[in-house]
């Protein structure tokens, strides 16, 4: 089972490649606000969730596709880690 650091790294790599092409990787920190900061819109949120479900074998419920669960790499890692149990 991947640890939180592994999840966080994978999430950052995915976000940099998909939604922040050409950006300095250091600009994306553990606490960068993704949804409230406007990096993720509704389509990119679904794309991210599809990636998380595929990569880590977890399932998201409708209400979990929101800032409460996905607003930063740290929050995302926490959400996935909790789902992995």
């Amino acid at each position, binding site marked *: 089972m991947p640890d939180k650091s592994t999840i966080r790294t994978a999430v950052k790599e995915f976000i940099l490649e*998909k939604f922040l*092409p050409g950006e300095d990787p250091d600009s994306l920190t553990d606490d960068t606000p993704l*949804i*409230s900061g406007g990096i993720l*819109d*509704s*389509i*990119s*949120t*679904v*794309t991210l*969730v*599809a990636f998380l*479900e595929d990569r880590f074998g977890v399932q998201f*419920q*409708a*209400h979990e*596709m*929101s*800032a*409460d669960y996905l607003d930063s790499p740290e929050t995302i890692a926490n959400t996935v880690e909790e789902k992995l149990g």
Partner: protein
Amino acid sequence: MDFDYTSLQRDFREEIIRFGKKELSPGARERDRTQHFDRALWDKCGEMGLQGLAVPEEYGGIGLDPLSTAIALEAFGYGCEDGGLVFSVCAHLLACTIPIMKYGSDEQKAKYLPALARGEMIAVNTMTEPESGSDAFTMNTTALPDAGGYRVNGVKTFSSNGPVADLAVLYAVTDPEKGAHGGISVFLVEKGTPGFSPGQKYEKMGLRTCPIGEMIFDEALLPAESMLGEPGSGTAIFNDSMAWERVCIAASHLGTINRLLDQAVTYARVRKSSGKKIGAYQAVSHKIADMKIALESARLLVYKAASRLDRARDVALDASMVKVLVSETLIKAAMDTLQIHGGYGFMAEYDVERTLRDSMGGTLYSGTNEVHRNIVARWLGVG
């Protein structure tokens, strides 16, 4: 990958086509002229199971998988020449019944699904507002906590089935700060709820037998248990239901395109001009050939998308591609069929002009085609 229908799919498809031709198509021209929603025909559709195609049998439905549902709706669009009735059933099933089936509590499913699946209740999806259309999540309607439930205020518009609906699937802002990302929730609102009433009814260019209007919420107090899904689920539920709607309404359009093709072929084989059947002229036969090529291409995309409903997050991309391709193919098929019919196509008696009018809404409802091209581009990382 198997491109053949199963025997069940084929038999049910043929049964729906026969039903549509015999029971639903007669009188369609007059109902269109008078904008008449015929409740008796709606009830017949319910007896046939059309409003509950995808609903599990334990809740009174047929229990079809998504692809079989699409194939059945394609047959419905082929056999039933009343485009508004087809649209009414699709809006009820895809944007209202299926979200309840997928996200409803056991109590909500037991209370509503059997009546919805049998057509005993009519449902309306209330999302669009006067100032938010394809940018749906900028809605102004609020449902704020009050007295142990939610107090709703706002106006929804262009609500298909609204004037005849018994149950509304309402999208409203429950947390303005979160907005589209966890701030929108869904509620089931029954007709007769104090503060909930139908507003203005609209006259349309096409799909005229599907009534459409405003829905007004004025200090309507909803019990907490009327919420569909968890608080903040609205965006995800809406996107899911729209994937179903975009793919499966397009499936019904495949049937309409097929009917237009048959109509064009029949006419081209009997109508003569300068001593020859008009089908002998390439100006006509190439239109028909192109219609066939477009239909078969669109069918492949629809079936692929339908087979991925419920098992792929990125079916939203498929749904947008389907929406654009099929709606534009339908309009072109209707225009070409009208052109092949010449002046007769312009006359109401041949029913082609009505199908053309019905087809025009396809590039507008469920998100305009411009928005869907934006969605496709954004899935590809551009735009």
